[in-house]
């Protein structure tokens, strides 16, 4: 049933950039070996790859797991050099992917499957959003009383308002310099709503923690180091919540950002045919079912799902549109001034 899987959790040394882990899927001696570089954990995405390989013969997939900033830097360098060292890129740093497409680093693909993609999740037939992962708030069920569970950003602001709030110093969020995704969420927050200014001020005043990586943040919430974590990627949070009853997950009901991991096929990819086949698979019903299984597609919008009360309804779901508007997030000066502003809020985290 399960395809042959070898995980080589090895650290290869690549000048300047380094992947976090690699795995090879498929038969021992495949006729074709396709390289996928992705920011998604091998453990999460592996079953989806296996399901795809079941529909193919003699195909192998080399899956490299990368951090989004490193992946972007490597791909940009590849593109500038006019080569493609991977056949497919999958990244949660969708603004970086938009930039790569904008810099003519991608190739186009049209099929029945891509024709069904919603407008905001496709750009130029070169970039596609394949997952649906809300940015959520995570809280500790044991330590946060039921009536204090924040349903929205306003609730979070209210919790932080009192002078002697017990939430002071126990709210965590991504360090936007360390995490590309954290930066993206914070940046879009700053563009989406005026609450962001107040939120940033409150977080700064109460000495909230900005730290790296979903796993650490969720761990911190589970063991009670943090009471609430803001803007955590829903897929990871829900995966942990399945196993750990201490963790509660809330989609803010003022608005919920929804991230679609973006897929692109680099220009000049060696196995572009295979890459398009995999893309079509990810967009197919089977592929979507697998992604749902992996919690990479989280049902929102009143669908039956794991998100609790305070669920976003209808109009407050804000998908992050794959469009050149995201280029603003990568503008050098814009980024510098945004990070400067962030630093002023979280001076304690300065290295």
């Amino acid at each position: 049933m399960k395809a042959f899987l070898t995980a080589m959790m090895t650290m290869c040394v690549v000048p300047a950039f380094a992947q976090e882990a690699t795995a090879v899927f498929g038969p021992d001696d495949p006729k074709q070996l396709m390289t996928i570089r992705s920011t998604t954990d091998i453990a999460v995405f592996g079953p989806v790859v296996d399901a795809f390989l079941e529909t193919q013969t003699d195909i192998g997939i080399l899956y490299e797991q990368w951090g989004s900033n490193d992946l972007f830097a490597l791909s940009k360098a590849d593109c500038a050099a006019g080569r493609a060292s991977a056949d497919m890129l999958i990244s949660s740093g969708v603004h970086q992917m938009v930039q790569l497409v904008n810099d003519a680093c991608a190739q186009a693909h049209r099929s029945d499957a891509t024709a069904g993609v919603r407008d905001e999740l496709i750009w130029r037939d070169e970039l596609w959003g394949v997952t649906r992962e809300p940015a959520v708030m995570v809280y500790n069920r044991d330590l946060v009383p039921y009536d204090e569970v924040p349903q929205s950003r306003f609730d979070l602001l209210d919790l932080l308002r009192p002078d002697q709030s017990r939430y002071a110093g126990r709210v965590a969020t991504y360090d936007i310099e360390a995490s590309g995704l954290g930066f993206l969420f914070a940046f879009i927050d700053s563009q989406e709503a005026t609450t962001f200014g107040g939120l940033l001020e409150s977080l700064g005043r109460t000495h909230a923690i900005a730290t790296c990586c979903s796993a650490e943040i969720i761990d911190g919430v589970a063991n009670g180091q943090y009471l609430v974590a803001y803007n955590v990627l829903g897929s990871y949070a829900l995966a942990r919540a399945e196993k750990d009853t201490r963790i509660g997950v809330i989609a803010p009901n003022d608005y919920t950002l929804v991230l679609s991991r973006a897929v692109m096929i680099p220009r000049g990819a060696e196995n572009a045919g295979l890459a398009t086949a995999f893309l079509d698979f990810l967009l197919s019903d089977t592929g979507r079912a697998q992604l749902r299984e992996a919690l990479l597609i989280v049902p929102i919008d009143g669908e039956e799902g794991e998100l609790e009360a305070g669920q976003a309804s209808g109009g407050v779901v804000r998908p992050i549109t794959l469009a050149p508007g995201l280029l603003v997030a990568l503008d050098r000066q814009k980024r510098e001034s945004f990070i400067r502003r962030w630093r002023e809020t979280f001076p304690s985290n300065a290295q």
Partner: protein
Amino acid sequence: MRSAPHEKVSLSLTARVALAVTGVLLIGGVFVSLAAFAYGRQAAREAYDRLLIGAANDIAASITVRDGQAVVDLPRSAFQLLALAPDDRIIYRVVGPAGQTLTGYETAPLPKESMGKDQSFFDADFGGEPARYATVIRRFAERSFSGNVHVIVGHTTLARRDLALDLTRNALFVLSITGAVIAVLAVLAVRSALRPLDNIGEVLGRRDPYDLTPIEMTVPREAAVMMSSLNGFMARLDRQVSSMRNLIGDTAHQLRTPVAAIRAQADLAAEEQDETRRQKIVERIHRRSVGLGRLLDQMLSRALVIHRSDTVRREVIDLRDIAVEVLEDSDHDVLSVGDDVRLDLPEDPVLVMGDALSLTEASKNLLNNAMRHGKKPITVGVSVQAGQARLSVTDAGQGPPAEILSRAGERFARSAASKSESAGLGLAIAYSVARAHDGQMLMEPQPSGGFVAAIILPATEV
């Protein structure tokens, strides 16, 4: 009536109009298509150029000076503007006074010549695709920072091409519909325009072959020209046919009596035994034959005159020439009386529009009548008075009997025939000629004695 070999059929009018309309539509279509494409490209270029300028202005407006540095707070609105060309890749660059890139793509091309204009456009390449760029200059003059900051915004041209094609397609769609409507209208118009021709043909086809009366039907003005020519032609035909018929009738009628008389004389001569009396009869036969000959001459000349009056082109002639010619001809006549005929001509030409031969013939008849029946001296005169030119023959006699005068205008005078003489017939010719020339005959006694016979015609100014 219609014999195929004589009908030369050229390209039908419908086909001609169809060809012309098709030609106009084709040539016009090609021109309009080119124009539509040029217009579409121009319109698309202008529309998206405005977009570029708008985005560049947005970015330029977001530049502030902080600590002696120009800082760009890239506005999302600029990108929302550019997103109106949804599938186009975007490139931007902000360049400081010293040429350093403040933010954006280092690879974005700079405008070739930095003209003084605050806004300019140029075409260049972006990642292997053609792209259009706009440059906006923001001028700073502050204590800590001064100089020009260039904002360059560009995008690829997919949306422009699509819009241009879309505009062209729409224009061509409208154009082809218009063309089809014009073609249909042209066919209808030609059919409606040609229907009177069919009607005329049908009326002519239904007509009795001997019916030469004018066709009376309502036709469009253009066809009326043809109708009036046709009617004129038929009227001429009618006159000729009826004068032919008259001539034949007259000839038969006029010849019957003298021929019968000659035959009776010849019978007498055959039975007459007495040589002297037979000689007398033969003389009578001879005299009669001469008279008959003259009668025939006159009838022929009348036929000629009547025929010519309809068919020969009128030209400007001098009545004095006619008078002289009549006199000269008379000199060779058997009945020439030489000095007894005088000419009375004015110094200046007397001009009329007419046919010289007919007029000469008519005048000759008048002179002959005067010489044969009138009293000498005879004067042939030409004069003009109040726009009326007049050629007259005057003699000193009483003129013809009232009976002849009263019937002089008729087709022919029977009395002439009865006397085997041709005074009546000559007069009838003169009348015909005068009428054919839009003139009239004057036959009246002179107050001073004598009788005048004159042809009066409208004089022509030279």
